[in-house]
């Protein structure tokens, strides 16, 4: 039964993929990409990766699509036919695919509990987490505690991307007062956005603070939080959104998020542990671990939410600045 759902979802993914190849309209391709992402999020749920599914649904199907649509709006919607015949790419793709499929023949079977990947560190993580870290969600404990260095690295990547987009798309741009085309008059959208804005924000905080117990954590919460503000900006105009959360504040918040993370690491060094060794943070090692995880999830959440909003502001305000530039 589980296999059946799996196979159906993979089949739908394949159909969507081929449709994207054939689609000439970039707008439609962007929407299909969103569907592709949502389908893979459903597949992740079937494959027991609930945390990953939440992240994919929020980021892949949500924010990435918004950015793609913004880019299509800033550039062009139609794709010209390629000049060359796709013969060479086709040969390359088929050859690569065949080589990879040949490579999979040596892989352990799907779902095999004896596969090497399940023998090395994972059993330790699963066994030790309740006693040492004290949180039920093993993904959170690995993400924030066992592999805290990695996660610090990822947050740095996000930070760098935010800076990069700011540099590319206008760091100096003045406040811009556009409203989404015509949305100002649409009372249905405005009233519903008003109703849902506090709910989305509360849900984001719920996801942030319940990452210990179930799917959730800083990354997902940050994105959901930013989505609330994007909805606000769509319904009430970018100008109002920037009055609510100014760019300057966002720039500071990105740095604050990173700093919270790094400061927890340094604090644990000052208290006599190693970098990011949370158990020294409190008298009881387990309490220390939980405190450390909570703090760094908070830092991650702040950083991710700010970067997503910075990127969104940058893309959308490019739209209203463009006529003056040209």
């Amino acid at each position: 039964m589980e296999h059946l759902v799996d196979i159906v979802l993979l089949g739908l993914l394949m159909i969507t993929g081929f449709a994207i190849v054939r689609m000439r309209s970039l707008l439609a391709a962007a929407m299909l990409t969103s569907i592709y992402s949502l389908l893979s999020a459903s597949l992740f749920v079937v494959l027991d990766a609930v945390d990953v599914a939440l992240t994919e649904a929020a980021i892949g199907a949500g924010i990435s699509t918004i950015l793609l649509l913004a880019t299509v709006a800033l550039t062009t919607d139609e794709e010209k036919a390629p000049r060359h015949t796709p013969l060479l790419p086709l040969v390359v793709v088929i050859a690569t695919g065949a080589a990879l499929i040949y490579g999979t023949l040596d892989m352990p079977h799907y779902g095999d509990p004896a596969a090497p990947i399940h023998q090395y560190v994972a059993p330790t993580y699963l066994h030790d987490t309740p006693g040492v870290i004290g949180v039920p969600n093993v993904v959170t404990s690995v993400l924030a505690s066992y592999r805290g260095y990695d996660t610090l690295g990822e947050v740095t990547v996000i930070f760098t991307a935010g800076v990069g987009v700011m540099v590319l798309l206008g760091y100096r741009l003045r406040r811009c007062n556009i409203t989404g085309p015509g949305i100002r008059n649409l009372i249905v959208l405005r009233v519903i956005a008003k109703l849902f804005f506090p709910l989305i924000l509360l849900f984001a905080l719920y996801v942030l603070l319940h990452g210990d117990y179930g799917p959730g954590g800083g990354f997902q919460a940050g994105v959901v939080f930013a989505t609330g503000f994007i909805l606000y900006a769509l319904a009430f105009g970018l100008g109002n959104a920037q009055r609510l959360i100014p760019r300057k504040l966002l720039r500071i918040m990105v740095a604050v998020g990173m700093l919270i993370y790094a400061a927890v690491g340094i604090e644990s060094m000052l208290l006599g542990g190693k970098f990011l060794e949370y158990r020294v943070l409190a008298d009881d090692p387990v309490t220390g671990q939980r405190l450390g995880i909570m703090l760094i999830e908070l830092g991650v959440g702040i950083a991710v939410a700010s970067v997503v909003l910075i990127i969104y502001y940058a893309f959308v305000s490019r739209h209203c600045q463009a006529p003056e530039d040209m």
Partner: protein
Amino acid sequence: MSKLQHAINLGLFLFALWVLLSGHYTPLMLLFGVLSTLFVVFLATRADLIDRETQPILIKLSVLFYWVWLGREIIKSNIDVTRRILSPGLPISPTVFTVRAGQKTELGRVTYANSITLVPGTVTMDVDKDVFTVHALTREAAADLKRGEMNRRVCNVEIVF
């Protein structure tokens, strides 16, 4: 009602939502719930969203009756649309027409517009003050809506200050 009263109502609603979502009732988690609620209410105040329309808990009992009525309508028209989709001749007759909404507040009009859309067979295409442009799948659905029963019922549950 004053702004403060609205803010408190929103806060209570959000905290109730938190309790329902959370499922972990340790003092720490409840404290987090209070802090989150306060933070969101603060942001909503800053966003100037605190008014009558962000009060999903302030509903009269009559709204429940309206929902029951609306649910019956939805089921009826669902079966009708399903029959039309599945019958080989595709017996539809799309029409576009306008209706006048009798509600006085924005929230009331939005409720009416969304109720029209929620019932399969009619979709609100445009809302211009109190004139709605509606697209109907069939003449029967259009005639049904033009009779104005839904309009009257939404007017009845609307709260006017």
